[in-house]
């Protein structure tokens, strides 16, 4: 067949290109622009080259925050993915229970981040919060403002409460799409409950689990609102994640150059890790 070139077709994609340019490319290039220059205001810029990048990469502040991010995401994934699968497996497959469970599951997802933060901030307060006071009256010394461990536990519980539902809903969608005949066939074979999960349900959920894993990784790695509202990055620097550090740098200290460099590094880390996860998980899918 002969290929026909129709240059008018490019006009069709023009609106999309313009939109993407305004929403993504231009802001990103602005950041790149800041990251390689130094400015003292007055619209005066001096070429800084890779100085800011080196500054950021050589600072302990960056590596400490990055470590916190990695640990936080690892914990979040280790809790939310298995918990989401377990809840999805135990959700009813038919009857009146289905809509009830789905609505209950969707509720946390409908609450804005900062509201979730405020809820837990009040909930956990030792003087007036239900959780804080209950724990205190039980003799447990819980205080997320003073104790780094308590601050972390609060943030993790908050995130688990807020986002496990997403994993549940995705897994549930994967589970209900498995034809009944699979379960029948397994039953006829005399397969155990574990075998059914391991050899039918898990492989069938693989694709949605990949999406759940990537979404939860990216989201938890970009965590900002919750620590900003609840702990403000403290106590000390114990909950200062990359995003919080970035805002402190850019708006608190007005170090635009290093902040721009950090944003780009931050972005590249997320991109790289997501790409690695995706590649690893899809290759293992192809192999079996």
């Amino acid at each position: 067949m002969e290929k026909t070139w129709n240059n008018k077709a490019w006009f069709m994609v023009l609106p999309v290109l313009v939109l993407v340019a305004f929403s993504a490319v231009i802001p990103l290039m602005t950041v790149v622009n800041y990251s390689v220059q130094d400015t003292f205001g007055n619209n005066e810029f001096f070429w800084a080259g890779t100085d800011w990048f080196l500054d950021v990469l050589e600072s302990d502040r960056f590596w400490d925050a990055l470590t916190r991010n990695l640990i936080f995401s690892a914990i979040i994934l280790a809790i939310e993915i298995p918990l989401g699968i377990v809840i999805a497996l135990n959700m009813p497959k038919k009857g009146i229970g289905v809509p009830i469970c789905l609505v209950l599951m969707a509720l946390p997802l409908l609450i804005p981040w900062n509201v979730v933060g405020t809820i837990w901030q009040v909930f956990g307060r030792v003087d007036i919060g239900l959780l804080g006071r209950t724990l205190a009256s039980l003799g447990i010394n819980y205080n997320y403002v003073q104790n780094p461990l308590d601050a972390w536990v609060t943030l993790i519980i908050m995130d688990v409460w807020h986002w496990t539902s997403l994993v549940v809903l995705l897994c549930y969608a994967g589970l209900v799409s498995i034809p009944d005949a699979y379960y029948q066939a397994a039953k006829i074979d005399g397969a155990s409950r574990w075998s059914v999960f391991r050899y039918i349900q898990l492989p069938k959920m693989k694709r949605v689990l990949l999406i759940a894993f990537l979404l939860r990784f990216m989201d938890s790695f970009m965590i900002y609102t919750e620590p900003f509202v609840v702990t403000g990055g403290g106590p000390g620097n114990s909950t200062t994640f990359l995003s919080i550090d970035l805002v402190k740098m850019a708006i608190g200290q007005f170090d635009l150059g290093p902040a721009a460099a950090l944003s780009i590094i931050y972005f590249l880390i997320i991109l790289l890790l997501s790409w690695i996860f995706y590649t690893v998980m899809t290759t293992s899918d192809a192999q079996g």
Partner: protein
Amino acid sequence: MLEMKNITKVVGGETHIHPTDLALERGSLNVLLGPTLSGKTSLMRLMAGLDKPASGSIHFDGADVTGVPVQRRSVAMVYQQFINYPAMTVYDNIASPMRIKGADNATIDREVRKAAELLKLTAYLDRTPLNLSGGQQQRTALARAIVKNADLVLLDEPLANLDYKLREELREELPKIFAASGAIFVYATTEPSEALLLGGNTASLSEGRITQFGRTIDVYRRPVDIVTARTFADPPLNTIELVKAGSQFTLEGKPVLSVPAHLATVSDGPCTVAFQPHHISFDRPDGSGNPLTVKTAISEIAGSESFIHVGFADARWVMLAPGVHDIEPDATLEVFVDTRHLMAFGPGGRAIGGTA
């Protein structure tokens, strides 16, 4: 021998299987033939022990197995969908029933390779089902059923989702593959031609009832009632209400079809006369008389055959004619009905008269 005695199946007040008796011999091939929702799958689930009958009992080799769950019976089942363990290789899939039973590795390896050889899967043993064609996936499922060496093998429309060529190929092989095992072999299908090709016995099902059970060819040639005859006709059975008067079937006093010898014993009066779509043709069949003038509605060309929809009086018939006929609608044609294959049904749809 599998015996079902007076079993019924009721789901939420709705009767899926009306009281049914059925006895299947070891080593036999049995076809459950009926349209969608006629109860084929329900009956199979009862045979397998996946469901418990609402009443009645099921016996296997004389022992009552009514309440025995499927895991403790010797059953293998293949479905219309291609059901395999998605994350396992073909080898592991075929081996899975034996692994659950706890067979040793040497036996497993031997049996898997034997089954793979039989179903032409040897080259694909290391692949996962996702990387196979539909036909190969279904072969894998069939291989799993074979290695299980079960007493009862249930195939629920196993070829329905395959393309035409593969369907023909597998349909030919299936009876041979399972014949050696001495198992009871049950095959559900909606297609009359499939039942005829498989042979063996056929139970014709309609709305949760077995209307007739016997040798496939007998059920086809001598249906006990019009429901069975309809189940066993594709394209649909042609019928017309006529009045028998001596040597003629008449419509409004005018003779339409001559009464063949085998229907001579039918007493005079109204009855339903029926014939298969391939027993009506443009050519005069031997020993049959007058042409019928029909009006054409539409004609469909299906490869080397044509389905011509015609109207005669109030009746609508389908004519299966060899060759390609491009016939205009509303044309008037002369056709012949081969009266040697006429069937007659009396009140309540019971077959009357002798058989061809």
